[in-house]
């Protein structure tokens, strides 16, 4: 199935991947943004975003995927996502309490409703997406360096 970790799979897989990977990414972002209206939310959407990267990496090999987003950038983005969530939590102190939902609630059933919930979803989405991708990248890099050690 996997011919060579450097170059990835066959042409058929690569062509299909080129078509679908953007859609998967978009779907993940949709799920993240609509977490307060429909099922899903930051976590599920974040995993879908991570899966779109994993998909690309499986099809094209490690190098191309890593050129789009490196381990360093991934772990930095993850920390930023985590800090953003903490910042949303601290925003509550504006109203006097940790985690208070201070922003206007808006009208239900629209995208810009429910105060801080949407920002929480976005920051969790960023965090989870790049975090899980970073795990996968680290595992692949480990295997690759091992193969180089052996040869």
């Amino acid at each position, binding site marked *: 199935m996997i011919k060579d970790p450097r170059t990835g799979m066959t042409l058929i897989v690569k062509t299909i991947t080129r078509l679908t990977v953007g859609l998967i990414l978009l779907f993940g972002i949709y799920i993240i943004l609509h977490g307060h209206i429909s099922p899903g939310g930051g976590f599920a959407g974040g995993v879908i975003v991570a899966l779109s990267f994993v998909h690309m990496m499986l099809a094209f090999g490690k190098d191309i995927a890593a050129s789009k987003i490196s381990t360093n950038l991934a*772990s930095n983005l993850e*920390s930023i996502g985590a*800090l953003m969530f*903490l910042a949303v*939590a601290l925003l509550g102190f504006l*109203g006097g*309490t*940790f*985690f*208070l939902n201070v922003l206007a609630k808006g009208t239900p059933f629209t995208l810009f409703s429910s105060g801080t919930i949407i920002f929480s979803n976005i920051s969790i989405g960023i965090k989870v997406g790049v975090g899980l991708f970073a795990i996968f990248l680290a595992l692949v890099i480990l295997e690759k360096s091992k193969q180089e050690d052996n040869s």
Partner: protein
Amino acid sequence: MKPANIIPLFVIVPLAAAFLISLLGKYVRRFSSAAISLSSVLLLALSLYSCVLLKSAPAKVLVYKVGGWIPPFGICMVLDGLTAFMLVTVNLVAFFVAIYSLAYMNKYTDKPKFFTLFSLMVCGMNGLIITGDLFNLFVFLEIASIASYALVAFGTEAEELEASFKYAIMGSVASAFIFLGIAFLYGFTSTLNMADMAAVLNNKPNLWLLPFVSVLFLMGFGLKAALVPFHAWLPDAHPSAPASISAMLSGVLIKALGVYALVRIFFNIIGVTHTFLTILMFLGALSMVAAVILALSQWDFKRLLAYHSISQIGYIFLGIGLGTPLGILGGLFHLFNHSLFKSLLFLNSGAIDYAVGTRDLREMGGLNKVMPVTAGTSLVASLSIAGIPPFNGFFSKLIIIIACIQKGYLGYGLCAVIASILTLASFMKVQKYAFFGQLKGGFTNIKEVPWQMKFSMLCLAIMCIAGGVMLLPFLKPFLKDAVNVLVEGTRYAEIVMREVVR
């Protein structure tokens, strides 16, 4: 600014430190060291301030409603006597260990990751101690556990990875039992707030549910606390970690995750029965004697210390299991003392490892000539753990034994005395082989460890010597408040709910 507003800082400060270290630690030199020092100082100050705050609070309890939701609809944080006591213990040890690690971790690569995980572990323990919500307790327990699994494997040598794997499996099974227990309680009471749950359980008769849930929790938290039938992971995991982490694991992690959580749930939510106390005392006495016997035959310094941790946890459970105010006082006081001297001993073993590069007692010898600070502090700690008079270990053991005799459990008192004598024998061996005797040839040009490590060890040693002052009248309320929380039992619900309404 209401006084209760400092309560969430116990979680926010270490979390912010962890996130910032992982973001900036790679780029800014010395950032991780500065951030970790600052956050540990801040946490220590906050925990001491919380004691002062509690003294002026009318009902000796403060409740913080996270997100402004009134419990039981939202999560609340509860600061009472026991919480303040545990917070001081955890943050005190964490502060000294953090300072020690600044120099010690030069042996390992990638310091920022270490400090991130360290900070997360402290955050998990603080969050677990301060929460008033059962599921939240589980979440923070998992944070602390996962950080400790990773930290045990931090050296990435074969032995460390194996120990970490074993620890992680045992810990996850324990978490599964705890989660199942929480699920049963939720199904029965339909609430997760601890105070509310205690109130519901008091008024709702049941025959099988509470004993079954008790057994689940006893298995789960017993595994986390390494009580004797569940102790198999500890002698592998604790020695394998870097020495500063061993100090945290043995010093405070097993107490916060095991003893504190168990005691809080059983005394304040479920309510203790005579059967339960008997089981707790039996397991405590068993751990005490069995582990010390196993420790006698060890030659690896850190492994020996790990077995002693199990044994000393036994003392704590014996004291708390007596159920009398005096017994609980002894148990909690011993918890505090043990966290001081056991972390000091692990830090000593780390200093020897740092300077000499071995953990095997047979390869050491005469180190008091080249490492006077390490030798001196380890002598203090050894005498404390063995219960020799002026040191702090003596007072807490004495209180436990007196409480045993008062309640008529002469057998358990005798067990405690025997275990204490065996502990003394075991540490005589350590002192004889490691520090006294002939200095071995290869060791003549060994230097004492850097000042950060010396500072931590000296401070902890001074606190071990002066530990007895905790029983003097002006400091005793600190312990007495913690004991009162447990003695009140399930009246916890009333006390907290009254504070919520106010």
